[in-house]
């Protein structure tokens, strides 16, 4: 029996990443193969249906997976996550000279990433609705739907949102904190040109989701091997660098509350895990 792992091909480097992990794991005795998916919706449907055993999931796919599994009498659980998946925040940024306040967004335009981006759309918009005394029924949201179905993994939507804010097409933009740092450091945001208006509380990002029909012994071995990957190991380090982590951590479900609320507010998925978001076709 071979453990089948699903991963979404949001970038060319995904092939290098999972080919590398596959070899690393196989050298340590785990029969594993990976299957690449064009988007997260198909991957999570296949996981719950048992066509794959584990899925490297976006946080949004994790939430849908829980709902789909419940509907179909299955359970899913988060086996692992990266250290860098824990305690992320999103920021709402504006041009430094603007007098925008999150207290009053009436009539304002907020640039966001893709409709399915937890970090650049769903979580920060939900947060704004909560903290803003008068978000206003006419707060405009300017979406940047780059590669729908990738759940914001493609950074293009965030870059477009940032450009819209800089150009004045939007009053503010919602970004992952790390993207804001990236744009600051690569010079997209000139020094002193952008102001952070608000920062969300921390939330969690991707996790390695397992379905209860998966072969338990292989899943256990898989989890132990990944948790044992050390940044001190020169063979493992390039893979960890490529996937953007220093260490794997045991999975947890405590960091998805904000996203769950946002999914319900936006009616992105229904309680059964069906896609209900308007104009969302991965």
């Amino acid at each position, binding site marked *: 029996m071979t453990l089948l792992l699903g991963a979404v091909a949001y970038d060319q480097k995904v092939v290098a990443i999972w080919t590398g992990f596959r070899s690393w794991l196989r050298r340590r005795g785990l029969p594993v193969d990976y299957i690449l998916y064009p988007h997260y919706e198909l991957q999570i449907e296949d996981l719950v249906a048992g066509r794959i055993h584990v899925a490297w999931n976006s946080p949004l796919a994790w939430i849908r997976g829980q709902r789909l599994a419940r509907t179909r009498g299955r359970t899913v659980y988060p086996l692992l996550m990266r250290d860098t998946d824990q305690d992320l925040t999103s920021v709402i940024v504006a041009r430094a000279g603007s007098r925008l306040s999150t207290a009053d967004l009436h009539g304002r335009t907020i640039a966001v990433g893709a409709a399915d981006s937890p970090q650049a759309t769903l979580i920060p918009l939900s947060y704004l609705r909560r903290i803003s005394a008068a978000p206003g029924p006419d707060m405009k949201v300017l979406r940047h739907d780059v590669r729908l179905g990738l759940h914001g993994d493609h950074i293009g939507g965030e870059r477009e949102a940032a450009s819209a804010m800089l150009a004045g097409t939007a009053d503010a933009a919602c970004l992952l904190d790390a993207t804001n740092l990236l744009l600051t450091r690569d*010079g997209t945001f000139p020094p002193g040109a952008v102001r952070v*208006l608000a920062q969300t509380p921390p939330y969690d990002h991707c996790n390695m989701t397992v379905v209860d029909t998966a072969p338990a012994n292989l899943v256990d071995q898989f989890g132990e091997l990944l948790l044992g990957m050390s*940044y001190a190991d020169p063979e493992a*380090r390039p893979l960890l660098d490529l996937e953007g982590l220093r260490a794997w951590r045991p999975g947890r479900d405590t960091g998805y509350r904000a996203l769950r609320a946002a999914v319900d507010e936006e009616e992105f998925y229904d309680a059964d895990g069906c896609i209900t978001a308007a104009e969302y076709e991965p």
Partner: protein
Amino acid sequence: MNTVIDTVDLGGIGFGEGAHLLLRRALTRARPGGRVAVTGTHPALAADLMAWCRARGHPVEAGTARPGDPIRTLVTRGTSESYRWAGAERAGGAEPGQRVSAPSARWGLAARGALVERGGPPVTYQLIREEQVWADLAPRLYAQAAAAQWDPAAAVPWQAEFEVPDEIEVAVIQVMTFLIENEQAALVLPARFLTRIHPHFREVVQLLAVQAADEARHIEVFSRRAALSGRPLGTSSVGGRQSLFTLLSEPDFSLASFLLSVLGEGSFLSLLAFLDRHAPDPITRVVARLAHQDEARHVAFGVAHLEHQAKTDTSLLPRLRSAVERRHEALTGTSGLNEDVFDALVLLAAGSWDPAAIASGFAAVRELEEDMYSGRVRRLIRIGFPSDEAAEISALHTQNFM
């Protein structure tokens, strides 16, 4: 309980202005698990600090600062940075005397003496042991070579006025044609080995690089001298090209450098001195002299390297001998030196078609060959051959000089 061992004030600068340098410096001073108190007033600091630290595995104490407020927080130094360098090793030392005799293939292109992170692909150099390439003279020769680089445009009196009889000019062009062909082989050969030598033996690589560049300049000045009168170039014989081909096909660095530098370029020293002496014009004289100066260095390295290697490798001398014998056998049945070249040398030394002058020119070329032979014997003895064997080997060297 971890104690705070350092504090860092980032002042008013943010992560777009270098704040991470200050933070990293403070974290480097802390031990893994140690904490650093961080303060700063840049308005984006709270968000940027979290993102930067998360990506590098340094936990940050949950902050309560609102965006724009000054921050005061604790960052714990994570372990991953120290993990990265845990198994790192020094690639020997920076000085030539601090080299190691068998550098790791995984050091790749790292500077000698650098702290090399473990991992990465092994680079497949073929020449990876000191005795295969090294000579203690290499650093000094490289320094000399770098200092002695001359500019072909400025070092040669291209504007000098002179008159050379037509047939003497044709002889000069024939000799230049021969020199260009040989120098092309002398350029390609060190260049080919450059990529096969472990960069740990830096001075050898540098020296060979300059050697190739020397030959490039020689080719340039010989070509310019040949073209001065506007006449076509001379001839290139099959025998000459066959001789050079056997040189280029030698895959072993020590054997190739023996055949090229010790025997070939060694013989060329005599030839270039001959041209300096019998040149009919100042330009020919200067280009021969400049090339001689460089070739002497090439010969010195070849001899020094083989001397160094022969001390530890007892199989070297027999291998050198059989390389010469193999080449001799491969060239049996070829015509040796291009007759046009031999005749051109005689005419240059004669200076005219007067029979007595021709006889004296012929004697001068015989003397040149004798000088080449005894020069080779001297160098062979220096490498470690007994004098009788040195004489035998010298006699087997190609008739094509190089």
